[in-house]
């Protein structure tokens, strides 16, 4: 798990199992394994892409990191200190360092607050900027994210989807965080707007030395923006490697199938119908035994249904969770 630099954030053995309750007395009948043993770290200034299909747990991991959700067990270390040990005061400071951007531009902004109020609220809560300078700061932030300062008194419903995402980004940025968890930040936007927002995120990272945890189901976008990519399946990381490596020479059979399924906008390459993954993604409630992927894996062996593979370093900085690699 070690990067050459000291990691900014470390996630260690994160598990999040939620009980499924039924009946009049809310008896627990099963557990949903949203996150089933996730560990990784992220260095300052890098972008870690979390990619996977529905039920893989990527969003839950992101939410746990910003403490919107509590894990069942596990540690999240910010600069070495476990965030779950933080008292109220330290937690507040923590929020200045780690922020989140949500997927839906239409419901992630309070419809009854002006744009300016939304962006200035974090600064007011944490008292990072004296009252008389807040307006200036807001104008600067608007500028940074490509919004016009005339729009400060507008309400969210007057902005387009892309502009609202810019507002969310400005809000996250207002506290000068070290890490931003971006949960599907461009998935709800039109293609031409996606490019604008992705470019914006790249620029901001360069200017502010931000780290991103970029969560998305869209491999094309993740492939573009990340330094390293983690492929998740049913709550576990199947493969974690630097971007180029994992996209050109994936080692895990799931990653291979995933990449083969992604359509490329190039009609000159013949349409390959090879290595298609059969079947459906199993439910995260009582997941398959052993390796979660064994039910669909083209090369699965007996061992795979019994023992859960550990994420280990196979090549330099390239981690794979598979018995057969």
């Amino acid at each position, binding site marked *: 798990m070690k990067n050459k630099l000291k990691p900014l954030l470390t996630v260690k053995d994160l598990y999040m199992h939620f009980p499924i309750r039924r009946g009049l007395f809310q008896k627990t009948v099963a557990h949903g394994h949203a996150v089933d043993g996730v560990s990784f770290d992220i260095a300052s200034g890098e972008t870690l892409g979390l990619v996977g299909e529905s039920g893989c747990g990527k969003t839950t991991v992101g939410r746990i990191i910003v403490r919107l959700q509590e894990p069942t067990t596990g540690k999240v270390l910010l600069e070495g200190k476990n965030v779950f040990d933080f008292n109220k005061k330290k937690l507040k400071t923590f929020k200045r360092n780690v922020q989140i951007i949500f997927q839906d531009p239409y419901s992630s902004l309070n419809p009854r607050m002006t744009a300016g109020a939304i962006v200035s609220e974090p600064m007011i809560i944490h008292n990072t900027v004296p009252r008389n300078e807040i307006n200036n700061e807001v104008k600067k932030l608007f500028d940074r994210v490509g919004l016009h300062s005339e729009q400060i008194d507008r309400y969210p419903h007057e902005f387009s989807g892309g502009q609202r995402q810019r507002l969310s980004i400005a809000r996250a940025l207002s506290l000068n965080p070290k890490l931003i968890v971006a949960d599907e930040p461009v998935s709800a936007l039109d*293609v*031409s707007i996606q490019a*604008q927002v*992705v470019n914006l995120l790249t620029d901001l990272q360069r200017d502010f030395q931000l780290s991103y945890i970029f969560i998305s*189901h869209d491999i094309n976008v993740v492939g*573009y923006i990340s330094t390293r990519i983690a492929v998740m399946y049913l709550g576990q990381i199947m493969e974690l490697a630097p971007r*180029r490596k994992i*996209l050109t020479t994936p080692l895990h059979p799931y990653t291979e199938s995933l990449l083969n399924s992604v359509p490329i*906008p190039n009609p000159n390459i013949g349409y390959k119908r090879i290595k298609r993954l059969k079947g*459906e993604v199993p439910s995260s409630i009582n997941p398959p035994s052993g390796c979660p992927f064994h039910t669909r894996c083209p090369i699965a062996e007996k061992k795979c249904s019994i023992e859960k593979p550990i994420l280990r370093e196979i090549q330099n900085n390239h981690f794979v969770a598979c018995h057969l690699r």
Partner: protein
Amino acid sequence: MNKASNKQPILSIKNLRVIFSGEFGEAAAINDVSFDLFPKETLAVVGESGCGKTVTALSILRLIQSPQGKIEKGLIEFEGKNILKFDTRSLYRLRGNKISMIFQEPMTSLNPVLTIGRQLTEVLIFHQNITEKEAKNKTIEMLQLVQIPDPKNCLKQYPHQLSGGMRQRIMIAMALLCDPKVLIADEPTTALDVTIQAQILDLMLEIQEKLGTAIILITHDLAVVANTADRVVVMYAGKIVEEGKVKEIYNNPRHPYTHGLLKSLPRLDNLNENNKKIRLTEMPGIVPSIYTKRIGCTFAPRCPLVTERCRIEEPPFKSVSNEHRTACFEWENIN
């Protein structure tokens, strides 16, 4: 591999104009839309939100909600007759029978309180004069065709018991039961996971090969278009801006919008060196609302090649080559 060998179009849309009246007044969702669909081909209609692609698709089967929406002008010719002039009876005989449609959200397109079997056999019994037993057999055949494991058991299940991918297969099965000449697929894979999307697209292509259905594929995903369509129509703000064979459009886009769209896609086949990230080409601005009054080319406010002429005059279609046309004055100056 020219699937459209027969030069007579099976569906022909001419000068279609659909307006919506609402609180903010009246506006045209699509204006002067014309294109043809040839037998056995896959035609993609691609564009971003608000471009009118779904409105176009709904118009074909006259599914536009009135009184808010109205097909004001135009002609939709199918098998030599104008669909817009059909009486109710003919329309019922058309829908689900000769022209079928599948939608994005399979859960809301399937009736949650009826079994799969019931919903499917209903289609057959309504359109064809066969017994329930015959309908059941045909249904099982179709379910096998769409690769549902254990079709007999599936008939007894309810939609909520199936996964998204399964439900979409059922939708496809339902649409193809009466062997329609045309299948309209409105964002059929957008709500599905990537691996399931690939399965469904494979399926659609396989079935097309077997049954010879012509497909109109509505999508915003340019990659899906590249892999599945023969020809493509690009729409922007209610108008067609470019049309042609997929290979030609992608290799040689002749409209600034198409060009910008293709350039702004992050892609896996274009990995560059990590440290020097090449910026995605941005198209500034946003898609205009249909209520804003427009003169000249609708794309002018965002166009990098805009001239004074573009702001005043609406560009007519120019033939770039055989089967490739574009609505742009500056089409020769792209790239």
